[in-house]
């Protein structure tokens, strides 16, 4: 992935291009911003710029650039969090997923970390001369998962690395980094992608039809990775399911019990979590619709744009909803499911709470 293949991020690109052009690229960069907006892709593109045989910003075609793309360049070290003794094939799977598409990295482990041994061996590598004599690029993905010891042992290297060594730290959560690491890097912030750009990228790269790309792009909240994840499953079906749930919420208690039973039987945890996330988005839309009324500018903000009529009816049915508590309940349920609480209980708890919140307002 060369510079011109990165989706959007004009500001970031211009910062980095100018730094390269002025020969002022620092030895340590912290690339941060939300997930799936192109940080890893940018890190790889930078590696190419630094190691390219032709010294070109947009090359991507020479042997070195190709090797960077395949993560097989001897002077590029990519480090990502892993458990203590990872299987070789797991590592291979992840590397392949990065090679295939830097916007999407397969997640295999629940709690991977970057360990001190990795950093120690990195230091050994760095102390040696580079193969191609163009320097070395170290890319640390998810740098916030550096364990404390590992992070500390990186400090000296990060401050004063050997000549021609560039460290690129990539993280969606910079505030979890040690402040001593942050202070040694120049920070480059990445923005969420506007949905138009995601839509365009989906159409162009994944050959998705425009209508569907529009829906997915809006739900992805600026993350191309999330958009890619959403590609795999059928969004409209889930939205139908969500509407069914919402309708049942104001029905009898028995209906809710049956609904939960059905959901837990037929859907896996991941789907249910996504459903709840969609539900959060739905209530968010309802909130905006309710406060701003139906207008063009409202529609611009809405995410469930293709269900706008249902939304209107929904908002009309309830005088006003305590959105803070509704969202709070949904978030609580998602957190509970993340923590492996019994799915049945979590959903029942949520649905009854929602029923109470919705019903009460209806009576008013």
């Amino acid at each position, binding site marked *: 992935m060369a510079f011109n293949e990165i989706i959007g991020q004009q500001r970031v690109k211009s910062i980095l291009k100018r730094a390269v052009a002025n020969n002022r690229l620092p030895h340590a960069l912290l690339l941060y911003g939300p997930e799936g907006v192109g940080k890893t892709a940018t890190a790889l593109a930078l590696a190419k710029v630094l190691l390219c045989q032709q010294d070109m910003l947009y090359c991507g075609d020479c042997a070195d650039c190709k090797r960077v793309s395949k993560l097989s360049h001897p002077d590029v070290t990519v480090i990502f969090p892993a458990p203590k003794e990872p299987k070789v094939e797991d590592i291979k799977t992840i590397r392949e997923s990065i090679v295939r598409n830097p916007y999407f990295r397969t997640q295999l482990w629940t709690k991977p970390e970057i360990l001190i041994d990795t950093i120690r061996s990195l230091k050994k590598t760095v102390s040696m001369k580079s193969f191609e004599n163009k320097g070395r690029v170290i890319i640390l993905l998810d740098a916030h998962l550096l364990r404390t010891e590992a992070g500390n042992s990186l400090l*000296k290297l990060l401050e004063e690395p050997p000549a021609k060594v560039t460290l690129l730290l990539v993280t969606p959560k910079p505030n979890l980094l040690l402040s001593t690491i942050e202070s040694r*890097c120049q920070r480059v912030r990445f923005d969420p992608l506007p949905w138009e750009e995601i839509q365009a990228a989906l159409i162009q790269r994944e050959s998705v039809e425009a209508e569907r790309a529009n829906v997915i792009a809006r739900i992805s909240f600026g993350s191309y990775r999330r958009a890619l994840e959403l590609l795999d499953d059928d969004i409209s079906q889930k939205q139908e399911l969500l509407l069914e749930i919402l309708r049942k919420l104001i029905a009898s208690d028995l209906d809710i019990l049956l609904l939960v039973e059905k959901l837990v039987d037929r859907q896996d945890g991941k789907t249910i979590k996504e459903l709840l996330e969609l539900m959060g988005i739905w209530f968010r839309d309802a909130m905006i619709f309710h406060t701003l009324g139906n207008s063009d500018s409202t529609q611009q903000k809405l995410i469930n744009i293709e269900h706008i009529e249902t939304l209107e009816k929904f908002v009309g049915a309830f005088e006003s909803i305590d959105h803070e508590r509704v969202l709070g309940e949904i978030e609580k349920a998602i957190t509970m499911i993340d923590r492996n609480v019994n799915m049945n209980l979590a959903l029942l708890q949520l649905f009854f709470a929602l029923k109470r919140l919705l019903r009460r307002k209806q009576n008013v």
Partner: protein
Amino acid sequence: MPYLVLARKWRPQQFEDVVNQKHVVLTLQNALKTKRLANAYLFTGPRGIGKTTIARILAKAINCEKGISENPCNECDSCRDITTGTSLDVLEIDGASNRGIDEIRNLRDSLKYAPNPRKYKIYIIDEVHMLTNEAFNALLKTLEEPPSRVMFIFATTEPHKVLATIISRCQRFDFKRIAINEIIDHLKKICQEEKIAIDDESLFLIARKAEGGIRDSQSLLDQAISFSGSKITSNDIIELLGIIDWDIFFDFSQNVSNKDVKAGFDLVDKIFFNGYDLIEFLLGLIEHFRNLLIAKTTGSVDLIETTDNYKQRYLEMCDQFEELDLLQLIQIASDAQYAIKRSNNPRIYMEMVVMKMMQLSKTRDVESILHGIETLKEKIFKSSSDQINHKQPTSDKTIAHSENPSVLNQHKLQQKIPQVSTTLVKDKPERTETNYQEDEVSDDTEPQANAAANTTVINVDIDTIKEKWSDVIETIKQHKIAFGAFLAEGEPVALTADTLTIAFGEENGFHVSYLKTNQNYVEKMISDFFGVPLRVKYQTVARQNKNNLSGNDLYLEKLGQKIPVIKTIVEAFDAELVK
């Protein structure tokens, strides 16, 4: 020459170049001058303020070929070797990577080899807090009594992780964060040397973002230079560093003030798609509201850290908000901070928070509500007294004897309104103390006494006595300390005719009997104080009564003294303290 970041290029090589660590530099230079060098130093303080730098300069000053001096020459081989990190006598060790006991054992073994003649062997252990416990303990003996001409310098950002036994063997220096002004001055110097044109606002933004770290400020400046070349403007900085333009906060508070929900949502969009960190936005927002609050309450902007242009705007804007509104906004924002950190979809949450802020109804503070009630009361009272005046000619004379409840109420109200702040606090508990065990005064004397009170002219009432009671005791103490001390145990509870009743706890029987034997003296003292002849009676109050008081009432009493408003509320609404 390859590009070197500013932070490395500008790493001070002389003590005098170090920014604002005077207390450390001076001490070390004096130690060098008098050659009173400790064998272990511990440098602590936040990131990027000069710990490692000073450690290196100190090493150079000690090992300089021109002899130990206050300032290293930076020219001799030794100094240059230390600067490049190739000196054989000065070993800079990364404590975080070499943290185990084995590494420390190796280090101890290496101590056997003496340094070059006339030089010190100096171990600089950076990030020393990451050493393991065993490693620390293995160091203890060496650290206390190292071979001659061996010195340790530890540097760490987290001194609390260093064993107390290590700290006690070191001379410790705490480095200070660097003030915004000093960072600005330092950056100005760099910009001059590097021939960079930069305006003051940009410098201010960078310095503030650096949060007291010189290295942070240098990295930020570096970035700004690579972004905009040799001319830097504040807009570049805002765009580059993701600093949220302060104008956004003003816009936002304007929206809150106008209750413009739509504009609020637009703003969230803007913040989100400009990639601003929502937490950072909230933090900025809290500071913004805090600034407004300061401008509002103090009427001045001296305490606000910002440029003059914004100070003026704070003064102009603060009138649009009530103090309590601002407090509430700050509360919402700081609550949201935690929630958003944990949220699965921060943007939705942010939108909700914005809506909440926009819909915040204008609060009125309790004082003004109470004031409203008071005026209302007076109005009602006026109209009712008008009615009474109307009635008076037709009704019989008994009305004057206050049998009419409305007049009674009116009488009470009249008493209450002016006295609210002073007497309410005191007279409440007295009412609850019901079970007096009357010692000498019999019950049936009271009505008579009451009647008498109306006739005899006494310009002292029980309230004034209570108020002055501590003064009374002070005065008596000056004459005879024992009386004063004994009387202090009791408290005046009632004044009937010319008789003052003082209540004592049951356990104070001794006090009472002592005072009784000196009845005349006590009476004289008290009478002299108030300038009216008074007789004194004592009564014993059952202990349990005092305890009864310790429930809600006592709490209310205490609270009332701290926050008089509460008391007033309780009175006005006939309310009960629930929590």
